[in-house]
């Protein structure tokens, strides 16, 4: 190995000593790349240089050779730093693979079934900013035309947020009732979150219960981004606000709930702050921009509107979402 490197290096060095051309230097650079890929340590390279020089210019004074010994000594730590870097890169790759697996597990674990209801068209999209999603959508429905939707957002991103979401799912699963009112759902989930999640973690959540027979939506919110009601009749946008603390702050929180009646072509837009807190180089993207996007596509299906809003916001932000993005639209048909 060393002999092969020595002869190759000797060739390059000899050429360079004769001509000092840019081509010779370029050859040297390419050779160094080869050496790195073969894990040749820098001290080894200097030692090769010294040996080749000794072969070619044995008449040089001893102090020249001594100087290389000092350099070799000094390069040992650089060589170690290089090896350490290799090993850290490998560990990073292992972590990446592990995160991919975890993201798959999360996807399976948090899977929810979109209900199909008479007179309601549903569109949804949830895209994590990193591998793991800190946003969560949960549907529950029954045969009597009731459907509940929870849109939740953990304050925080990535792995901790994703783990936290499992608790919300666990709470929703244990309720498993599409007829329960939002204030009660939020109460139960609040107790689950408060009991089982670290003090520094909070969850915001919107809960809406749709009744297909009456075409009404009853909703409550735990400190979540308000849902928006679009009235087709007068093309107006109204925030659906409801008082309530973030989940996990105190076990005794109470949650307001309100009911709205949906008319044909009305839209209910539910989202996380990843939708509204997008920013461009000019600052935050205002809600009016989002309203405008929605209005432009109001005659399309709910899923088409959702996709359009996502694509447009993505374009405005140069495909860089800082936060998890979740958007759900109900369209009364």
């Amino acid at each position, binding site marked *: 190995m060393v002999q092969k490197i020595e002869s190759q290096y000797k060739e390059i060095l000899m050429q360079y000593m004769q001509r000092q051309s840019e081509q010779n230097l370029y050859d040297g650079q390419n050779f160094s790349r080869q050496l790195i890929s073969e894990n040749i340590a820098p*001290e*080894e390279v200097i030692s090769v240089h010294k040996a080749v020089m000794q072969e070619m210019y044995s008449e040089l004074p001893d102090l020249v050779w001594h100087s290389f010994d000092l350099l070799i000594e000094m390069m*040992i*730590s650089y060589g*170690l730093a290089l090896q350490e870097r290799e090993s850290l890169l490998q560990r990073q790759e292992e972590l990446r693979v592990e995160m991919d697996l975890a993201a798959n597990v999360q996807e399976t674990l948090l899977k929810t079934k979109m209900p199909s209801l008479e007179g309601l068209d549903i569109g949804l999209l949830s895209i994590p900013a990193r591998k793991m999603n800190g946003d969560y959508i949960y549907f529950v429905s029954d045969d009597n035309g009731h459907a509940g939707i929870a849109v939740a957002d953990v304050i925080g991103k990535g792995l901790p947020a994703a783990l936290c979401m499992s608790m919300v799912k666990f709470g929703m699963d244990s309720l498993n009732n599409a007829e329960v009112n939002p204030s009660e759902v939020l109460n139960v989930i609040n107790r689950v979150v408060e009991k089982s999640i670290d003090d520094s973690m909070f969850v915001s959540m919107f809960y809406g219960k749709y009744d297909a027979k009456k075409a009404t939506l009853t909703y409550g919110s735990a400190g979540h981004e308000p849902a928006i009601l679009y009235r087709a009749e007068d093309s107006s946008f109204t925030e659906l606000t409801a008082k309530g603390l973030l989940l996990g702050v105190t076990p005794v929180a109470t949650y307001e709930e309100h009911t709205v009646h949906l008319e044909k072509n009305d839209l209910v837009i539910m989202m996380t702050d990843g939708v509204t807190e997008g920013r461009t180089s000019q600052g935050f993207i205002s809600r009016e921009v989002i309203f405008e996007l929605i209005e432009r596509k109001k005659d399309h299906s709910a899923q088409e509107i959702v996709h359009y809003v996502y694509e447009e916001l993505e374009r405005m932000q140069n495909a860089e979402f800082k936060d998890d993005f979740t958007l759900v639209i109900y369209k009364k048909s």
Partner: protein
Amino acid sequence: MSNQSVVEIQTEWDIVAARQLGRNVAKELGFGTVDQARITTAISELARNIYLYAGQGRIEIQRLTENGINGIMIIAADQGPGIPDVRKVMEDGFSTSGGLGAGLPGVKRLMDDFKIETIQGEGTDIRATKWLR
């Protein structure tokens, strides 16, 4: 067959003495310049750990012969506080991130064999060997 020599580590100057001893033995055994530099860097690292964390201890250099192959063993022993979390100090990035040098993972890389025994409150014994190829 083995024969040994020892340097007591009490001051920073002793680190140099330990290096010198290691280099002389390595040179006598026929290690090349690069390997000599690796062996002395490992000695430096171990001696400095003793000086910084145990206060005092010793570096012992042994010549080894096994199956006709010669080698050198560095033994770093102290009666210091011991290392509370060996796994952590053996992790890459733990000591280097603080700018403390190559650390024990570095020593392990520089040598062929590496063994560490440490008991909290009693001390640490590290043995690192390099074989002449």
